[in-house]
């Protein structure tokens, strides 16, 4: 098949498994985000795909060709490093031209491509600047231009926005999205930030402790996390333990319908918009512990029920918002039924 295939990658460092059988496919032109907490092995995975680190098992396949024995400089995979790794002894032009020169392109083509790529990343006229005179955002753009210029088979980005401040991140994230889409560049984007993954990716590969735990579109990942880990990782923290009996679950906050039948101890996911405050037809109460203003919404944290279970819900900020310390009555809207996860998965955390 065409595109990138990662098949059963295993890697240990000092006897400790870092990657334990990672597999996924990527179609040409697709933007794939590898999302996971730090230490889950995602950067190692990039190094292996790049050919900088050799796996103990598994294959990296590009367009049907096994790349395992191919050294990094013959793969034509672009890699943008976490803090850019710009060559400090070269100016902007020489940095961007480096890959083109290594590919033996004639001088005029190199010059033309460098100029075009610098235009593309929004740095026209920066050719002869020294890289250490550039701001963080400018360095990031030069690094992107350097990786893009040789038109790599796959562009890989390793937490490229990690060291920038928030406003700059958002700006660059938009630009990055624009540039990648425009070039129809097959891209592998490694990040621990779900917002970045949502913004850029066609599909997301969620990793945990050296394994792929879920693959799906951003919407699928957010709407249907397949484990408590993924739910927590994408910011869905309202997990309530309970006992499932067929299509119902009994919890400390009452009995709710389940999205699919289950038996025994489970934990169910209450979505952040599931609470109805001020409902007087309920005996469910809680104490508001904290209210955080978030702009369009407010985050209301409560300790709910007799077991004082900590939950947090989002309310539109133009509605009446309870204050910290208030006792509130509320009900839970289970919709078509609550998503549930087995306890074993959670205990791995």
């Amino acid at each position: 098949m065409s595109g990138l295939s990662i098949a059963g990658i295993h890697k240990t460092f000092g006897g400790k498994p870092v990657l334990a059988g990672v597999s996924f496919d990527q179609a040409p032109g697709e933007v794939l985000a590898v999302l996971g907490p730090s230490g889950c092995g995602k950067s190692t995975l990039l190094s292996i795909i790049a050919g900088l680190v050799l796996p103990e098992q598994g294959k990296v396949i590009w367009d049907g060709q096994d790349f395992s024995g191919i050294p990094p400089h013959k793969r034509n995979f672009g890699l943008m490093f976490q803090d850019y790794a710009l060559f400090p002894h070269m100016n902007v032009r020489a940095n961007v031209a480096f890959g083109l020169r290594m590919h033996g392109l004639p001088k005029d083509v190199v010059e033309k491509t460098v100029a075009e790529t610098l235009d593309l990343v929004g740095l026209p006229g920066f050719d002869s600047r020294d890289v250490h005179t550039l701001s963080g955002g400018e360095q990031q753009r030069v690094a992107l231009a350097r990786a893009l210029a040789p038109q790599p088979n796959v562009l890989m980005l390793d937490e490229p926005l990690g060291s920038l401040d928030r406003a700059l991140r958002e700006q660059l994230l938009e630009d990055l999205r624009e540039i990648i889409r425009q070039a129809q560049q097959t891209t592998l984007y490694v990040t621990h930030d779900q917002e970045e993954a949502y913004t850029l990716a066609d599909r997301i590969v969620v990793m945990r402790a050296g394994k792929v735990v879920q693959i799906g579109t951003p919407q699928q990942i957010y709407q249907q996390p397949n484990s408590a880990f993924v739910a927590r990782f994408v910011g869905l923290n309202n997990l309530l333990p309970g006992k499932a009996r067929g299509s119902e679950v009994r919890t400390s906050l009452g009995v709710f319908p389940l999205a699919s039948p289950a038996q025994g101890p489970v934990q169910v996911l209450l979505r952040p918009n599931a609470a109805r405050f001020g409902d007087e037809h309920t005996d469910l109460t809680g104490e508001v512990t904290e209210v955080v203003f978030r702009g369009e919404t407010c985050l209301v944290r409560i300790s709910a029920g007799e077991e004082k279970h900590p939950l947090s819900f989002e309310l539109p900020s133009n509605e009446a918002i309870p204050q910290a310390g208030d006792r509130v009555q509320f009900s839970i809207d289970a919709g078509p039924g609550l998503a549930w996860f087995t306890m074993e998965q959670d205990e791995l955390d």
Partner: protein
Amino acid sequence: MFNLDAGVGETPMTKRLVPLLWLVPLAFLGVFYFYPLGTIFQVSFSRAEGSLWQTVLEMLQAPSVRRVVGFTYYQAGLSTLLTLLVGLPGAYLFARYTFRGKNLLRALTGVPFVMPTLVVAAAFDALLGSRGWLNLGLMQLFDLAEPPFQFSNTLTAILLAHVFYNTTIVMRLVGDFWANLDPRLSQAARMLGANRWQTWRKVTLPLLAPAILAAALLVFIFDFTSFGVILILGGPQFSTIEVEIYYQAISLFNLPLAAVLAIIQLLTTLGLTVIYTRLMARLSRPLSLRPKSLTQQRLSTWRQRLAAGLLVAFLLGLFITPLVSLGVRSFVQLEPDRGQRTFEGPHVTLAFYRALWQNSNQSMFFASPAEALATSMGYAGGTVALSLLLGLPAAWMLANRQQDLVSRILDPLLMLPLGTSAVTLGLGFIVTLNRPPLDLRTSPLLIPLAHTLVAFPFVVRSLTPALRSIQPRLRQAAAVLGARPWDVFRSVDLPLVARALLVSAVFAFTISLGEFGATALVGRPDLPTVPVMIYRYLSQPGALNYGQAIALSTILMVATTVGMLLIERARVGEGAEF
């Protein structure tokens, strides 16, 4: 630009007082370096007949002088090149990989550097010389009457000894820098299509250039001013400037020629140092250095292991074999001594060590190893105290007043003593420090003063980068919390450079322990140091004297090795510039 780097918490008064820190080291250099040197030059030239310039020009045109100067440059250049060739792979191995025994190997490669030249020469002689293991073995094996392998008095011997000596400079200076160089820079080059060779040439080499240059400069200066190695291993047909100064001044008493040669040596050192400073400014890039833990990896593939194994074996062979053969030789008597009638053949013996304690010649100036070692240690202790006392303020000024005019002028000048002929300086001491108020002829301070001149540049070179690497914010934080400048220095600078301080102290100690040239000239004959005693034994004929020289060398070798291992334990993370 607004500079917050230095002068935190200073009041206008302390700002004016701080430059006074230069006073102590400058006064020292003035009195004990420039004054004796200037005087000896003056004395030398006043003996010349005719106009000064004419004399100098005539000397420079003499073919013998040209040959000496030419050979000095030639052997120094060649030695430096070979040293880089051996040192760079070692630097790479130490910079990028972790493996078992690495720290021990590192310590061992540092041992030669602080070995006294006499010991090194004796060690190579014990291995490869006409009475060395190699030749004895070959003679035994093929029943030869003459040693088949000519080592002493060859250029090979000189080059090998220089490589042996200075490889550690390359491995440490370049290795430390390399270890903190971001490996992702070369990974980025690989990802962009550069093969290994292109990556090395276009990325790694240009980034390493400042460190390689710094190492090459030091190695060249050491090879250029080399004395003991040439004197003992080179023999009469090889003469460098320093050896020629010794012959001309001591044997022929041709002081004008000695002075001209000393000035050539000085100008070369100064010129090189100035070029070096310029190049450094051009080549240095602001690099984001990374901690070693992130740049080093284990040896993983069999090919890496094989290459590393071969390299380690080679380094061990180069560094350890001569030293081990020296140690072994000191316990073995291979041939009868002069006048010894009953010789039962080669055997293991403690005779050489025992003889060290006997004043068999009833010499007035005899010293037992214990006495000589005590003298050496005493001088070394004094050298440590003096060179730290002088080096710390100088290093502090260089680190914190980098842009001051004084600092910029003094930076290369401080290196000068390294490139100064010890013989010339010794003579300078003799003619200047012999009358009140500076009558130091019999003072026990004279030798530590001379040794401090050699150790001082080292102390400054290793303390300055350590002081420079202190984040200005730490000093600012201390100042904001109410610390006065002295408090800042005492509570921030001093603890953070404690390790570098210890390293410099041990360096100063071992340099003093092994120094020979100046000591031989200005030392009191009744208080010989260990190297002086070794030289006395070496310059007397016979198997017993040779054995005693080797036994005493072994004692000194053990003492310096212990010092080096102490350094190795103390060094954690920080790169010394030497």
